[in-house]
């Protein structure tokens, strides 16, 4: 028996006038997995998720959710699906609780006590009776998660859930998403933050300018990642550059901001730093510029590279 996919989107395209927002993308999310859709702003992530929710009609291609399509099942496609697109929005003149009660009405009612449960989960119980107009951005994000959980979903779709949050809010939101994912939910998470996706997801699709730039597992992505990069500040950059010529595993160049940019495997970079010490070149600063996956993400979504073929070549170079 063919397994039912939580999301089966095939060849989906959407144009807004002359702009092709989504270009024949295919995304398949298996039930029970945590799937990331990654891309810079304007990559087509949100348009894709809006099509998934039926807010936007695709120009071509098909989207099936738990084996139901909008054409056949109408709003029944959303049975077992919940989430929010971009920042969740509510009626500011209603309290948080009244908003949830109203949305529960639209869902055909909820079991007794569920509203209290979901408010507890997102830590909003003590503020549930305040009007949403007075909520902070983070509180609205959490109310959005509560509104989603109210549907007791099998598939949770979260579009940039940490967007706009302060560091503490980001930490709390990630912890919440991890907890939900661990409970067995299928999670489809969109983000422009590689770190967030790397931390949470099993599989990932990277979108750029509406097209798929990569999809596969996080492990596959790691194998494609280039060496990490570091910024070094030393007491004698010229001598450090000269020493680098004898270390073939590292690539060292002088940054316009008078720092040394070093790329290479961690072991090679460590050996180079040790050589600097032995040569009495003091190290004043050592900073990792980006993680390997971040570097790969930027390579795959760098708009200065005109074609996906170029991006693919760059990824292959990184592999070598």
């Amino acid at each position: 028996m063919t397994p039912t996919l939580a999301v089966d989107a095939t060849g989906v395209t959407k144009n807004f006038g002359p702009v092709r927002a989504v270009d024949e993308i295919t995304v398949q999310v298996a039930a029970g997995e945590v799937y990331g859709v990654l891309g810079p702003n304007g990559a087509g992530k949100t348009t894709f998720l809006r099509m998934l929710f039926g807010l936007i009609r695709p120009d071509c291609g098909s989207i099936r959710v738990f084996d139901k399509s909008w054409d056949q099942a109408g709003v029944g496609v959303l049975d077992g699906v919940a989430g929010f697109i971009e920042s969740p929005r509510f009626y500011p003149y209603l309290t948080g609780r009244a908003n949830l009660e109203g949305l529960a009405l639209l869902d055909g009612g909820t079991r007794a006590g569920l509203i209290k449960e979901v408010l507890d989960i997102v830590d909003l119980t003590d503020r549930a009776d305040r009007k949403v107009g007075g909520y902070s951005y983070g509180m609205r994000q959490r109310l959005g998660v509560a509104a989603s959980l109210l549907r007791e979903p099998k598939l949770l779709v979260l579009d940039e859930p940490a967007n706009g949050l302060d560091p503490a809010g980001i930490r709390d939101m990630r912890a919440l998403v991890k907890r939900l994912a661990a409970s067995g939910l299928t999670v489809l998470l969109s983000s422009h933050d590689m770190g967030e996706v790397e931390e949470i997801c099993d599989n990932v699709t990277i979108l750029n300018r509406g097209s798929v730039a990569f999809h596969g597992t996080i492990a596959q992505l790691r194998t494609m990642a280039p060496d990490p990069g570091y910024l070094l500040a030393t007491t004698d950059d010229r001598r450090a550059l000269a020493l680098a010529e004898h270390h073939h595993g590292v690539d060292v160049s002088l940054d316009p901001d008078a720092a040394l940019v070093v790329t290479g495997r961690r072991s090679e970079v460590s050996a180079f730093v040790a050589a600097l010490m032995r040569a009495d070149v003091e190290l004043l600063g050592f900073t990792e510029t980006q993680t390997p996956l971040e570097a790969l993400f930027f390579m795959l979504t760098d708009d200065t590279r005109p074609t996906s073929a170029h991006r693919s070549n760059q990824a292959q170079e990184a592999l070598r």
Partner: protein
Amino acid sequence: MTAVQTHMDPAVRESTVAVERRRGGLGAALRFEVRKLRAQYRGWAVLAGAVLAPIPIVVIINGQSRPPKDTLFGRFATDNGFALTLLILGFATQWVLPLLTAIVAGDIFASEDQHGTWKTVLTRSTSRAQIFWAKTLTACGFAVLVLTLLAASTIASSLLIVGHQPLTGLSGQTIGAGTALQLVTASWATTLAPTLGFTCLAIVLSVWFRNPAVGIATPVVLGMVMVLIGGLGGIEIIRPLLLTTSFEAWHGLFTQPRFTGPLVEGLLVSAAWSVLSLGAAFAIVRRRDITGG
């Protein structure tokens, strides 16, 4: 275009196939719309205005030494409560009723754009059609309520402050107090159809422009333009088709003999405006891509 195959635990797979869930339907969507309306001060302010505003107006007109003779029933307005009620009705149909109904109807769809909440309600278990009809019924229900309150308050305050003497009809006939009360009530009732026509007009503007200010103000402006056009000569073909002409259909109730042709005509014209407005609004809501919010 390439596909990605994902890996999953078969046990998890079996347990995560979506289940059919209950859906809210039109009734639930209607209850939510009414709750939202009740939570907003604007609706209560309009209802309070409909109840309270006629009282000082009646007091002020009653206190004037010279009645407004150049308006229909104005000549008797300071002596007869029924005449004053009809004078206020004539004034209300100029722009007051379109405004009162548009305050809710012109905002009820556009406010979803204003608050960015289309995506909130359309990602639940209620269809676009159900949301549309729930909003439409709420706006129309509000229009009926505000018209009823305005009529009841105007009639009661006029009769209590000015009196309920027999009314002189448009043909000079005397209409007894009991009959006059029935006819005055019927006159207010005949404005329901064009009021609902303006409600539907406000709805389509609210849907189309996605801006509450446009949804509320434009029906009032259009109403005034229709009154202006209706006052011009040489447009006898167009005049019956104007929504504001339907507001005048009650005049025939106060002639001897009575004529009801304009009432039927007004009913049909109002229905046509309502159907066309709602049809256009429904088509927009059904086909629209929700990209904002």
